[in-house]
């Protein structure tokens, strides 16, 4: 297959230098790179239409340079310098016969790649616009006027130094929508902010000085935390799902054992085999002891679940207590007559539930001077109810796990939103 020539070689009618047109058929204005005269590329004679500019410059990226950028092959064919009156910036016109045109905007420490839109973003609520299901907020209260201060190369429109457009910008993380309007038309461009060094590497120019803090000093760059936030957020979501599933899919709570016994206050410690407990699969076990009518008494219970085969023992300890009295603030009471202990995973097997029990009844002369004397008959025994449950959710574990899972994503979310806040502030400065 024969190839069509990519460049059209011509002679500048003003200075006589050989020039090349790289987008023949599309180029309308051609500014000679030797003398700076603007030529009419529609005219076969390349009639000059504007005199040479003073202070001629060479763009940092030489026109004619090719680069692979964001998946496409591009050639820099035009260069424009513009200013808003305070800050100057540069724009390269990139061309590919197969992909059309793009704008490579050089704002000093930041580069972006602009694509002219074939549609107008939707304006729905207030100062926000929507494009491709993404919303963009108004970048600043005021719009500004951009004026062309220098041009060289070729363009698909009538380029001229001094030409102005009114610019309104909308922003989201990593991208801008820019609306440029003059009396005749209105053009919307989406600018994707490039990664630091991306444009320089593609076009083979030295990388721009990285600012010391690559995030906070240029908040217009996409939040460096966003990506990590999404991936960690996804991991956390997955983990929470698993946690919820495993917590609630646990077998419903079921009572394995129930016994009633009694403790004798101030008697020597007594060891009792309360009964047999059968555990059919490894899972958490809860032992609850309850003594309903304690009156300035405590009961210590040392539980042991002893495997009948292996004699392996799972131990837990609970205190049941209840005190009351009167002090300068009036009547008080404290202590819990119910003690719940958890054994997080007990293997299957036949177990004896053994308990060492001791109890004490305080007289008025107890450690607290204001303790009321127990009203109980000195010889009364203290009834205790003990039962063993298996399964059920350990809500404490659940919340702890949830906190651990969410800790790192929360830190990232905080950093991300702090960055977004800075970005909005930077625009409204």
């Amino acid at each position, binding site marked *: 297959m024969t190839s069509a020539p990519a460049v059209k070689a011509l002679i500048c009618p003003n200075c006589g230098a050989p020039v090349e047109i790289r987008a023949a*058929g599309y180029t309308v204005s051609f500014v000679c790179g030797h003398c700076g005269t603007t030529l009419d590329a*529609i005219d076969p004679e390349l009639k000059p239409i504007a005199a040479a500019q003073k202070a001629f410059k060479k763009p940092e990226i030489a026109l004619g340079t090719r680069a692979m950028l964001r998946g496409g092959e591009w050639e820099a064919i035009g260069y424009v310098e513009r200013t808003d009156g305070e800050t100057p910036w540069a724009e390269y016109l990139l061309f590919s016969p197969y992909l059309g045109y793009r704008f490579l905007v050089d704002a000093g420490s930041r580069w972006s790649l602009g694509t002219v839109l074939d549609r107008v973003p939707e304006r729905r609520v207030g100062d926000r616009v929507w494009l491709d299901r993404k919303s963009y907020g108004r970048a600043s209260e005021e719009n500004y006027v951009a004026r062309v201060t220098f041009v060289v190369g070729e363009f698909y429109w009538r380029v001229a130094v001094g030409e102005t457009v009114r610019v309104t910008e909308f922003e989201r993380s990593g991208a801008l929508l820019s609306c440029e309007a003059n009396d005749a038309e209105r053009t919307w461009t989406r600018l994707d902010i490039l990664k630091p060094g991306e444009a320089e590497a593609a076009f083979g120019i030295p990388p721009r000085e990285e600012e010391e803090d690559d995030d906070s000093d240029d908040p217009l760059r996409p939040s460096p935390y966003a990506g990590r936030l999404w991936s960690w957020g996804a991991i956390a979501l997955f983990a929470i799902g698993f946690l919820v599933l495993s917590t609630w899919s646990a077998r419903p709570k079921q009572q394995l054992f129930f016994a009633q016994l009694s403790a004798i206050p101030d008697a020597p410690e007594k060891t009792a085999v309360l009964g047999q407990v059968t555990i059919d699969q490894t899972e958490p076990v809860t032992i609850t002891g309850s003594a309903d009518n304690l009156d300035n008494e405590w009961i210590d219970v040392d539980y042991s679940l002893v495997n009948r085969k292996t004699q392996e023992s799972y131990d837990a300890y609970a205190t049941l207590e209840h005190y009351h009295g009167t002090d300068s603030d009036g009547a008080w009471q404290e202590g819990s007559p119910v003690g719940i202990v958890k054994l997080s995973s007990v293997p299957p097997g036949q177990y004896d539930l053994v308990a060492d029990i001791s109890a004490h009844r305080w007289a008025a002369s107890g450690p607290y001077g204001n303790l009321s004397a127990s009203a109980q008959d000195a010889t009364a025994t203290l009834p205790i109810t003990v039962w063993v449950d298996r399964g059920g959710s350990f809500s404490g574990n659940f919340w702890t796990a949830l906190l651990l899972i969410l800790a790192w994503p929360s830190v990232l979310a905080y950093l991300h939103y702090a960055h977004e806040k800075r970005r909005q502030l930077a625009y409204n400065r």
Partner: protein
Amino acid sequence: MPAASCPQCGADISFRSTALPVKVCDFCRSVIVRRGEALELAGSAATVPDDVSPLQIGTRGQIDGDAFELIGRIRWKWAGGGWNEWFMLFAGGSTGWLGDAMGRFMALREVAPQEVSGDAIERLIAAQEVMPGMTATIAGVSYAVTDARTVTCVASEGELPHPAPAGMEMFSVDLGTPTPCCASVQREGETVFAYAGRYCSLGDIKPANLRAIEGWTIPDFSA
């Protein structure tokens, strides 16, 4: 495929479709018009100037599932630029135009006159000035005029629905919407023709047999 020879230079010519009356001779650039069995000369088409359009006669593609092949081209210009209109022959025998301007493409099909209305159209028919911002309704879609100017034919090639000799003038109105839908309305003499469609990228039309351009790699649009 009806075969004949150029009445000017004698070169073999062929028509892709019996419905199309005009063919530009590939050799001598004569515009040949078919009237029944007879072939008549209708001036010279001029050679299309070199450009770097990725399209060529023989490029194939699809628009909304309809396969087409490019069989002709008219090159137009005005004071602010120039562009190609590629003539599309669809597999079903219908035709359309693929506009090729400023690195963007517009796939347009003709719309029947009774489906075209609005102040811009009335003024165009009355040969009054048409200004940006005026409105038109074409095939049920509302458009606003974005541009209106007299354009001049630079050159043409291949098979065409009408002769397009170099220097032919027409008044052309471009219309847009907030969506990729776009339209073009033209007045040639007393007649108004409307074309409506949408902007597309080269990738959108799944192109095959694109034109090779020195030093450039044709992107893989099938991906």
